[in-house]
């Protein structure tokens, strides 16, 4: 006899699927002729991946999208996106390059900038609108504090950061304003991966290669 709980579960299942519904599943278990599957769906979201061997600059793996048959557009090398906080290490590396250390402190507090073009102001905020006071560069980068990063960018100079970004492999044009601190300028995945390989190589720039051995 079905219990009330079973009935509820049964109703749920009927609400989700009915006979004739075509679904995508993944085979989870094959055991003596019994096949167990799991409900899945093909993702609509897409992206790209590059795995680089930093020491050699060799590209070890590249994935330009979920399915080459669905889209040949290679997001790993053709797409440009706003990097967001992924751009912050370049700003902090510029600061270290100018003589600051990871232990140097900077203020993470609200700041308002007047825009030159009009009378509007720009007031960046931290994630969750929290304020952390004086923080070390190490902590500011680790916790991705926006306010500290914008102040740091203002201190080291936007032009210096852009120059440094070019040195480490960013070739896309970067906006020469403080929004660069929040990663507002679009870059390619290959450029960003190359820049990160410089960090892991302790500052040595390797030319990336397409040929691996």
């Amino acid at each position, binding site marked *: 006899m079905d219990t009330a709980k079973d009935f*509820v579960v049964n109703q749920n299942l009927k609400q989700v699927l009915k006979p004739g519904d075509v679904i995508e599943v993944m085979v989870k278990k094959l055991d003596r002729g019994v096949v167990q599957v799991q409900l899945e769906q093909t993702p609509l979201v897409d992206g790209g991946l590059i795995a680089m061997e930093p020491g050699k600059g060799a590209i070890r793996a590249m994935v330009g999208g979920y399915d080459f048959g669905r889209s040949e557009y290679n997001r790993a090398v053709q797409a440009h996106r706003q990097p967001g906080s992924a751009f912050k290490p370049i700003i902090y590396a510029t600061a270290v390059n100018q003589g600051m250390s990871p232990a140097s402190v900077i203020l993470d507090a609200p700041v308002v900038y007047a825009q030159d073009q009009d009378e509007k102001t720009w007031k960046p905020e931290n994630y969750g609108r929290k304020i952390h006071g004086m923080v070390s560069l190490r902590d500011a980068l680790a916790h991705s504090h926006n306010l500290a990063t914008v102040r740091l960018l203002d201190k080291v100079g936007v032009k210096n950061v852009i120059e440094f970004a070019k040195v480490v492999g960013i070739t896309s044009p970067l906006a020469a304003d403080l929004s660069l601190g929040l990663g507002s300028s679009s870059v390619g995945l290959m450029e960003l991966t190359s820049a990160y390989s410089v960090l892991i190589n302790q500052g040595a720039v390797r030319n990336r290669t397409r040929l691996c051995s």
Partner: protein
Amino acid sequence: MVSPRQLKHILGKTSPPSRLENQHFWRVSRNRRTTIRPSRPMIAQKETGACTGRMEEAKFLTTAEREQAAAEILSFRRPGAEQAAPYFRGIYPAVAGREVWRSDGVQGRAQGFYDIEHGDAKAAERAFAFGLRELDKRQGWRGPLRTVDTTAPTPPIVAAMTDQALKVGDYREGFVVKVAKDYYLVQIGTTVAKLSLTIWHGRSVDLPGWIRRKISSSIRISSRC
């Protein structure tokens, strides 16, 4: 028997005639090395058509054989590497070809060479696809792909490759044939599989959140299965 001159006319290169004595020349032409990209099948078909056309003119092929060759599906991929790193292959052969050209100074048609670790590429593709699926699930389930009539006299066909043997980890399309008390039966090709929505990531849990968002919030979810 083909003379070297005729062979050059047909294939665009010379080769010892004895090597080709007992072979079908259209197969030779079809399998010869080429820089044609797998993603550009029209160019491959055009070149094959021109080559077999010249062979027919030279009386090495009958019209039926030429048509048979034209009807065959061309494959320029090495066996076992069909799906490896398609994006990498799509972008880099030409670039790498120029590099080889410069370094070796070889005269002739530039070829694309690349050497990618297939194991790494496969692992990256799997991990990337898994990550995208998990990311997509945060947006909730979009519902069934479509609905077929299971009572029709002709069995519904829901996917092209459903007759292949199932393996753990395969993604397939199937259609629901029965809704039981706490599971579904799903037909995948000729196999009927059990789909239990109350098991998620190996644990007995409620309906997964990404599916639950699809159904009405007024429905009670059992505390356990």
